[in-house]
């Protein structure tokens, strides 16, 4: 065979093989096949001896060309492999990984934890409280007498077999039992479920959560200005914005004076969230009525307190603009997983 043809074949052979190379190892094998001592390129030199003198120069040039060509191609490919490796890490990191499935905590419990944390910062401890309570705890101890329309402000679910037992309609039912257990001064919050005999719709549920705050201290240490501060502190932290608080006269039998607490909506001129009122009703509060403190045997000459109650679902709905309270109890993961 003519040496020219031989070189041409060799080049084609190399290019074919190079194209098929997929790994670095294959590339190195290819390099050895052609470039090692006694490799395919070196073997070309066998022609040298049998060449005519005038051809020797031409052969020499061709030989160097092909050798350099192969060396260059191998080197190029090596570089590709090296950069390819680095590139693929980058790529993987930029792409989605295979995830470990993580469960999610219910949004109400996530917020509950946050709320407890905020109240802890200002001295309030979280205290656990029962859901099924006596009529006395829920009503009588809070100046809501039997056969009085004030009771109709809370529609009640009663226990059938025990006439004096009910599902608490508000967390205030724990005020007197708690005060009976401790001695003042105290600062506590009770967060938990309450129940109402009610038709359900977007804004009403038969079961929801309340946050109750109770502070009892020496009379001279207790006033509404501090209570207002507690609201400003809590709601600013909770909503992660400066909370503008407004108090408005209202009536709850167990506080006097008693008032509603409104939060300025984030809108400028009214929106859906505040029903175009610019303020959102967010809590009820007041100075604990001495009647209530007396139920726990406290000396009302020297002690006073303030209390407040606020719907957990309500403030979470405002915070995240959730349109329907029924989502919370739906168990629907399409809702719950939003808050992971």
């Amino acid at each position, binding site marked *: 065979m003519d040496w020219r043809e031989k070189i041409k074949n060799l080049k084609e052979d190399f290019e074919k093989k190079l194209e098929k190379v997929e790994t670095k190892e294959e590339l190195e094998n290819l390099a050895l096949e052609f470039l090692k001592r006694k490799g395919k390129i070196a073997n070309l030199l066998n022609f040298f001896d049998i060449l005519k003198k005038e051809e020797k120069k031409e052969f020499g040039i061709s030989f160097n060309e092909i050798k350099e060509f192969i060396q260059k191609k191998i080197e190029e490919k090596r570089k590709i492999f090296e950069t390819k490796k680095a590139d693929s890490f980058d790529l993987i990191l930029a792409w989605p990984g295979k995830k470990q499935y993580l469960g999610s905590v*219910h949004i109400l419990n996530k917020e509950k934890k946050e709320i407890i944390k905020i109240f802890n910062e200002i001295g309030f401890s*979280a205290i656990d409280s029962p859901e*099924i309570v006596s009529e006395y705890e829920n009503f009588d101890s809070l100046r809501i007498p039997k056969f009085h329309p004030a009771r109709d402000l809370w529609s009640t679910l009663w226990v059938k077999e025990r006439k004096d037992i009910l599902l608490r309609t508000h967390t205030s039912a724990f005020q007197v039992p708690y005060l009976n257990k401790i001695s003042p001064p105290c600062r506590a919050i009770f967060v938990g479920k309450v129940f109402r005999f009610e038709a359900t719709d977007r804004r009403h549920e038969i079961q929801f959560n309340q946050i109750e705050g109770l502070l009892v201290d020496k009379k001279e240490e207790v006033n509404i200005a501090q209570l207002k501060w507690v609201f400003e502190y809590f709601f600013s932290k909770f909503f992660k914005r400066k909370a503008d608080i407004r108090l408005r006269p209202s009536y709850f039998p167990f506080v006097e004076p008693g008032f509603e607490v409104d939060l300025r909506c984030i809108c400028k001129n009214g929106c859906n969230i505040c029903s175009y009122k610019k303020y959102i009703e967010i809590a009820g509060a007041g100075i604990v009525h*001495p009647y209530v403190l007396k139920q726990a045997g406290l000396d009302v000459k020297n002690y006073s307190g303030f209390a407040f109650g606020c719907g957990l679902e309500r403030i979470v709905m405002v915070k995240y603009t959730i349109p329907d309270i029924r989502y919370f109890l739906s*168990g629907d993961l399409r809702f719950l997983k939003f808050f992971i």
Partner: protein
Amino acid sequence: MKFYFKVLKNYIKGKIEPLRLKEIIEKKSFEVENFNKDFIEVDILPNRFPDAANFWGFSKEICSISKLKLKPLNVDFKEKIKDKPKLKLKFDVFYTLRIVKNVKNGDSPKWLKEILSLYDQKSINFLVDLSNFLMLELGTPIHIFDLDKIKQPIEVRFAKNGERFIGLDQKEYILSSEDLVIADANGPIALAGILGSDRARVDLNTINIAIEIASFPQDLIYKTQRKLKLFTEAGFRFERKIPQSRVILASKRICSFLKNFEIGPLLAKKEEAPQKIIFNFKEVSGLGIKISKNRFKKIIKKINFKIQEIKNNIFLIEKEPDRIDIESKEDILDEIIRIYGYEKIKSVPLNQNFKVKNDEIYDFEDLLRNTATFLGFDEVVTYSFIGEKDLEFLKNEKLFNGNCIEILNPTRPEFKFFRPTLLIGLLRAGKLNLGFFNKVYLFEIGRVAYFKGKDIIQKLHFGAIQVSRTKEDLVLFKGKIDSFFEKLNLDFEIKNNLIYSDKKIIGKVFITDYLDSKIDGSVFYFEIYIDEILNILRKEKVRKFSDIPKFPATFRDLSFFILSKISYNQIEDLIFKAGGEIVEKVEFLDYFIKEENLSYTLRIIFRSKEKTLKEEEVDEVFEKIKKEIEKLPIKLRS
């Protein structure tokens, strides 16, 4: 209650500016529900209903919070006859009665019809319309009897059990001894404070009348209305109490409209003297405002209370008699702050040094939540109620056999009982989510309750469920339970669907591969009792650190089919016993199921405390173990 500005004008001097009025009412008095240029609708809560839910009282309220002035109410009339009705009060109640003779009943004047029509009330005849109007004007329900239809004496008494009463509405009511009635010799002529009778009603032929205005006890009216499911406007007002002062005022006011007729004297007990309250000015510190004594006195006068400083800073306050909601110094504080203005309160930080201690349950709940979510469970919160069918299911599956707490007035049949387990809610949530996912893992932390004898037991439970459309491998779920308890640092054992720890029952499991046509896949569930677990963990002692082993371990794997029910403890005990000191621990390695035969592979870890074990030594012990194990109902795989 709705108030029309054109009506209020009859009671108030000066120009009413609706928008300004609305704003000040919101700030100082009541929540405004509706408002336009013609009317304002306010929510008057039970405490202020007696004095303010009427034209006169609302006008008075407006004048105490604004610069507007009240017009005097016309109460002019002259008594012309001396006739008094015969009255027997068998029950002590503030009750007034007055005879008016030779009345002419007929069509009502235009102004009266107009006002009633604003409140969607049809004009009936002058006397009926007048009493209806006075209820709106003064808040006092008034009842007018046709005197000629009554056989005196008139009695105020409790009904006899089973006594029948036919109301103005032509319906018959069967009464009991807790219902207060007004009666004559022939029986009830009115259900006190709620409904008049057909028999003694005034009509166009009526000539002589007896006008009843009273303040019936709230609780009696409350009970009777609910028992008979008969709710009237009068009843609504009596439940909220009628001030005696208003009864007297109304008895005069009505006569001013009956001047042309022969008015008799009022039969009434003496009004209670208005209550006086001693008020220490220092109490205003609780309001968190700085207010001068002068300002304070002005506010008290503005709401028509009398005030007198009897000692330095000690005041005697005589309330306006209509304000029966005012009972104590706290109520006075409430008046001061609302009139002064809540918006003037500037917040003051609480003293920051206060020791905080949350109940221990909150940390533990965190641990449960972190562990469950890490194991891939999503938290739900479900209704605390179950229905009849759910309870039946629980009993059939032997998941609960105690006494459930039944709700007297459930809102729906599926909410008939308070839940004794978290299973039902989790199953419901699981089924719901199968509409969108093939398999879900859910958990809940919540209270359950049931009867124990007569006592109600309330416990906090944790429940976790796997619900799937297809048959699933229980061994994987058991692995989650194992990991869960490992994180709680608690040894446990499951026997007969109950979870035990420290020899106590601390939970239960429920496993099925067919629940209903909707879940023909599998349901795996476990529930644990948090209080019991906390009790065990509280007793927990510090586990001393045993040093990192000095010599290397080696292991052998043991694979076998289980031929009949055999406890894991039995195998483990046997391995330790047969293997002796050098068996360090036994671990689960793998499992498979072949034609319903269950095969496990356990890994036995060998280690000596004194030396590096030789392979031959381990082999020897391993053979010994195998020999012993083969005595159990298992088949070793090679």
